[in-house]
């Protein structure tokens, strides 16, 4: 039977590296998903995901269990992504990352299974449109849209992750969806 989050956290705080690895492998997918949604490309998502777990390991002593460990991890992931976006903004590197297509091709080549050309092309085009729309959203609105509509988290969970009231989450979601509606009008049937 797999160890509970509480057990893994207790052992990791005591210095058990394998217990921390257990937490990493349990939540790496969701952390990567959040990072990918926020940054729009695999390279930055990988940086953010790695950075999230490094920070979590170093700050594990500060985690007091007032929230679920995954809420805490996702909060670190969102903040790490926001930090990266701010750094890129200062350097004038923001905007749709032109390496998205190249990264997608590399990833597709690395995955197993026969390619489905038309479906892949359509999905890739949608992801580009969504990435483009997300890149134009203010960072806090982007976070809410990624966490709710892409990662499927409920309002209350998002409010705990972002540290804002559920009403603020709903308000940002409303605004972000309205912006995305204009961006995705070609895909709306």
């Amino acid at each position, binding site marked *: 039977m797999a160890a509970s989050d509480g057990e893994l956290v207790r052992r990791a705080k005591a210095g058990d590296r394998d217990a921390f690895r257990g937490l*990493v*492998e349990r939540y790496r*997918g969701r952390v*990567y998903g959040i990072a990918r949604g926020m940054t729009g490309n695999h390279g930055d998502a990988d940086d953010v995901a790695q950075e999230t777990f490094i920070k979590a390991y170093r700050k594990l002593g500060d985690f007091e269990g007032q929230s679920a460990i995954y809420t805490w991890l996702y909060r670190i992931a969102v903040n790490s992504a926001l930090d990266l976006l701010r750094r890129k903004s200062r350097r004038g590197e923001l905007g749709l990352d032109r390496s998205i297509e190249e990264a997608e091709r590399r*990833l597709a080549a690395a*995955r197993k299974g026969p390619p489905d050309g038309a479906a892949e092309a359509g999905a890739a085009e949608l*992801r580009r449109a969504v990435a483009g729309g997300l890149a134009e959203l203010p960072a806090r609105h982007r976070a809410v849209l990624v966490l709710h*509509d892409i990662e499927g988290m409920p309002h209350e969970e998002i409010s705990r992750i972002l540290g804002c009231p559920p009403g603020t989450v*709903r308000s940002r979601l409303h605004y972000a969806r309205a912006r995305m509606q204009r961006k995705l009008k070609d895909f*709306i049937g």
Partner: protein
Amino acid sequence: MKCRKAGKLLSDRLDGALVGGSRRALEGHLRECPSCASAGSELRRVRELLGEAKAPDPGPDYWAGFWPRIEARLDRGPEPAPSFAARLRAALGFDRFDAVISPAPALAIIALLCFNILLLAQVRMGDRRAAADGRALSGPRADGRRGGAVWAARRGVDNVLCDHGGREGIDEYVLQPASFRLPAGVRGKTDYILTRASGPSSGGWARGAY
């Protein structure tokens, strides 16, 4: 319920966050307003599209290397905190440049400031040097007492004692440091005297009477 209010509630309705009277009112409005009903359908489609746009899993090869890279960084120990200079460069936006050339903009600004300070000092010193040998200072000719005083004021030269007895429009005046020839009996701080270029002093001196 009006369309404007209905539009603001569509998002909450989509997420099941609308309850009670607000939900009933909105549903009633949507039954009667095709435009808002269409907007609601579009919003639902947007949410579906966003869900479909979730990036694919990066694959087993990526995940196979994920933990080893984290472990390697943990084994290296904590990264050193950025130095003050590095944080300052980042705050000023200079970190976009190579480490080799990042000091260049700050150094250029400092060099320009030093140059301007030196230039200003030289102009002031040049003024005083010219004044010390009795020649009329550079710039507009000290045409009369008033002209000399205006010229002095423009250059920030103050504490000027003026020979009041000269003939306006006739006598040429010279601005000289007070240490050069301070009239006897003069009281108060005096840095310069504005005196006639030739001929004896009139004996009447005044400050600020330009």
